[in-house]
Every structure is written in C-alpha cells, then in structure tokens.
C-alpha cells in the first residue's frame, strides 16, 4: 500500500523549486550526510535537455524568447509506488536523481527526516548566499547629500 501523506501543491512546488535551484555540490553534500538510500525503479531515466526561457518586452509586455537553459530531469518510483520527479538546472544526472528521490520521500511518512536533513539545510545555505550578495549590494548604494550654498544662509 502506498504510504503517502497529505501535502499541498504549494509545498511541493517549493521543495521542487529549491532542489532545482540548489548548487549541485551542496545538494550532493546534504544528501550524502542524510544517509538515505531508498530502493527505486526508473520510470524515466535522467535526461539532459534545454528549455527556452522567455522574457517580456519592457519587463511587462508581450513575451519573447530570450534563450535556452540546460535542465536535467528524471522520474522514479519508490518500492511503495510513490513517484518522484526530479528537475535540476544544468547538466547533472546524479543531481536529478537526488532531486527525484527527495521529491518522492517528501510525499511519504519519512518527510520530516528529509525536510530537516536535506530541505532545511539547503534553504539556509541558499538564503545565506542570497543575503550575502544583497548585503554587498547594499554597501554600494549611493547616499546623496546636498551641499549647502552660501547665499541660502
């Protein structure tokens, strides 16, 4: 019997997006530390491809094709039948496999362990990296000051 838990589409979008954006070394690192090795069967073996990224004219107007980006995807099934989809940026078959395993496990009763061992460390790491850049950017913000002219006194 499939041992699945309740989870929202919003939550699944969040973890799948996090796994896709995560630096590949960090993803491999937290996965190794989590010490999980669930048995699975491939539904769709890892495949490298491209997606056409779109932008909008003027940032808000009509869509246009900006250029492509590499993506690796795969789909697998755990022994209990839970399906996991893995999508990661770039060319990493092992990364897509880990992403699909995490996606599958997050739908099972083992979700809490995966969340604390894989999802949350990645979240912290990526948030810190983003904040560090934002902090450096903030230090380059121009502070204007006005010179007081003599005749204004």
């Amino acid at each position, binding site marked *: 019997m499939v041992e699945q838990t309740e989870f929202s*589409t919003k939550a*699944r*979008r969040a973890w*799948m*997006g*996090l796994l*896709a*954006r995560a630096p590949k070394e960090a993803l491999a690192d937290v996965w190794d530390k989590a010490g999980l090795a669930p048995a699975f069967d491939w539904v769709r073996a890892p*495949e*490298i*491809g*491209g*997606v*056409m*990224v*779109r*932008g*909008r*004219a*003027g*940032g*808000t*107007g*009509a*869509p*246009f*094709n*900006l*250029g*492509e*980006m*590499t*993506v690796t*995807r795969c*789909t697998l099934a755990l022994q209990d039948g839970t399906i996991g*989809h893995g*999508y*990661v*940026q*770039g*060319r990493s078959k092992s990364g897509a496999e880990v992403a699909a395993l995490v996606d599958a496990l997050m739908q099972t009763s083992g979700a809490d362990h995966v969340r604390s061992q894989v999802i949350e460390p990645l979240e912290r790491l990526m948030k810190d990296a*983003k*904040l*560090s*850049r*934002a*902090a*450096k*950017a*903030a*230090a*380059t*913000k*121009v502070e*204007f000051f006005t010179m007081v002219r003599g005749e204004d006194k």
Partner: protein
Amino acid sequence: MYVAVKGGEKAIENAHAWLAEERRGSPDVAELSIAQIREQLSLAVNRVMAEGSLFDPDLAALAIKQARGDLIEAIFLIRAYRTTLPRFGYTNPVETAEMACDRRISATFKDAPGGQVLGPTFDYTHRLLDFKLAADGEVPAAPEGAARREPTPHITEFLKGEDIIQDEPASEDTPGDLTRQPLEFPSSRPLRLQSLTRGDEGFVLGMAYSTQRGYARNHAFVGELRIGKVAVEMVIPELGFAIDLGEIELTECETVNQFQGSKTEPPQFTRGYGLVFGQSERKAISMALVDRALRWEELGEDYLGAAAQDEEFVLSHADNIQATGFLEHIKLPHYVDFQSELELVRKLRREAEERITPKEAAE
C-alpha cells in the same frame, strides 16, 4: 575540364594535433581549469552564454577553453551543442521585477525607491592597469550593508500613474522562435528582441552608437539598468503546475526616450528594452537603443533611411555565427570556381588585346 581532387586528410589531422598543443601553450605554465574560467573570466563566459543563446556557465567556460579564448568560436561551439538538446518546453516569462539585484541604477531618477545601487561595476574606476593583479590575487572582503530583503520595483512603474510614458501592456501571445522558424520580414518585436539578445555585441553596439550619432536620432536616457538573479519557472505537464527550474543572472535595461508625438501617438516618453543573459550591460543598453530605433513604424515616426531603423539590415547581420560562417567559408578551397573565373578573365584579356592590336597595326 573538371578534375575531382581528394587529399589533405593527413595534413588536417596533423594541423588539429598541433592546434591541441598550441591551445595548451607552454607545459611549464599551469593548465586552466573550467572552474577558473567560469569564476575569473565570468564576463567572457556571460558573453558566450548570451550570444550562444544557452545559459550554462560550465559549458560556456569549456567552450572558451576549447576555442583558445576566441569568443566567436566558443559561441559557435555552444550553438552547435544546443541543437543536440531535446527541448523540454518554454518557460513562463521571467519576472524581472522580482530580481535579486546586485546592481540597479537610473540615470533619470535620482531618488528612485530602492536607490542607486552600483554593484560590482567598472564605472568610476580610473582604467589604469593594476600591476598588483600581476603579483598576487589577494582581495579583501567587500564591505556589507543592511541587505534589502524585498524586491526592487521597476522605475517605469512610478511614471505610469501620470500616463506620460508609453505602457507595455501584458499579453499572452505566443512569440515566434528563431530557433524553430527562419526569420522572415517584416518580423515582429518579439522576434527582433530574440535576435538582438543573441546578436553580436560589437554589431549591436555599433548600431546603437549610430543612433546616438544622429542616424535615426532617438535621444535615450537609461531609465533603469539592473543586474541580478531571477528564478525561471515552467509548467511541468506531468505535474500540472509550474515549478522553478533554476535561477539565471540577467541584465535588463530600459531606456526612456523623448518623443514629440506622431500622427498616432501623443507626446510622451517611449521605451526601448534590453534583456541579456549574464552581467552584460554594454550589450543590454545597446539592445535597448536598437529596439527603440526599430519601433519607428509602430510609433508612427518617419523612416529616415537609417541602418538602425531597417530591421532587415539589422536582423540579417546581427548574428555573428551566420556572419562568420559565410565570411570564413571563402578561405576554404574554391579551386574550381576560381579556375572558371581565371579562364574567363584570360579570354576577355585575349579579346581586348585583339581589338587593340589591329588598330595599332593600321596606324
């Protein structure tokens, strides 16, 4: 007479072996790694991604290494590679208003909400060679301030209320795709933007510069220039909803152009738009200027006969891989073509000489 010629296999093989040796350079000097190119020559990597039209920093770095630093050759390698990739789909348009900005400046609004954030820029450097870099690469950590956590809104948003700037109303039209259908004229703004963003930086810069010098004059201000990361989201059919597939660095430039009004449009500010992979601001500004010049028809402006207004001229010559392919093929063997030309010129010469000689004899 046509004589089929074969040969050169051994010479080609040996030439490529020598190429590999020259690429490596002196073995006494440490070899460059892909990571070194990606991290330390990142603006070259960005250019190869933008004009190769494929966002993948590691692949672009590999291409630069393989091409011995010849960026057009590297772009060629990336274009060839991308044709081998299965296309998983088209993403939702990126939300540049949500960009995590490393840099965000405006030449028009000093006090824009979010401020003038310079980021890691060459601007205001003295352009003097820094011999310290030749000695060692040690750098102190960059200072940090209070990180902004909320997104930085676009500056044009603040002008919209006044109805003094031309609007860019959202649409969900499916844009044409140059990688799927060959370009035909007249094209459309989405196709022009796709062509310009992957066009040669030097060519697009030259076209943009021509508009500044008075050919199709469009006095442009940089309303906003921003560089940073945006998430890329796509609807996954097997899931039935959209997920982030990754994050890419982009440079976005919006120009604000003075516009006196035309037969169809009231006096207002009009806009040009540039959006380019990576940190590529010279290219993004150039793209925005050329985009604006090419919009003359929809804005009811006059065609002044300037090259930057002629979409067929601009778009047909912007692609450096097409250009280099046609240009460089003339160095490959044309023995038979040339043989026939040689025969023709010799015959014309003979005929010309025969016309002259009897006249001289008569005098």
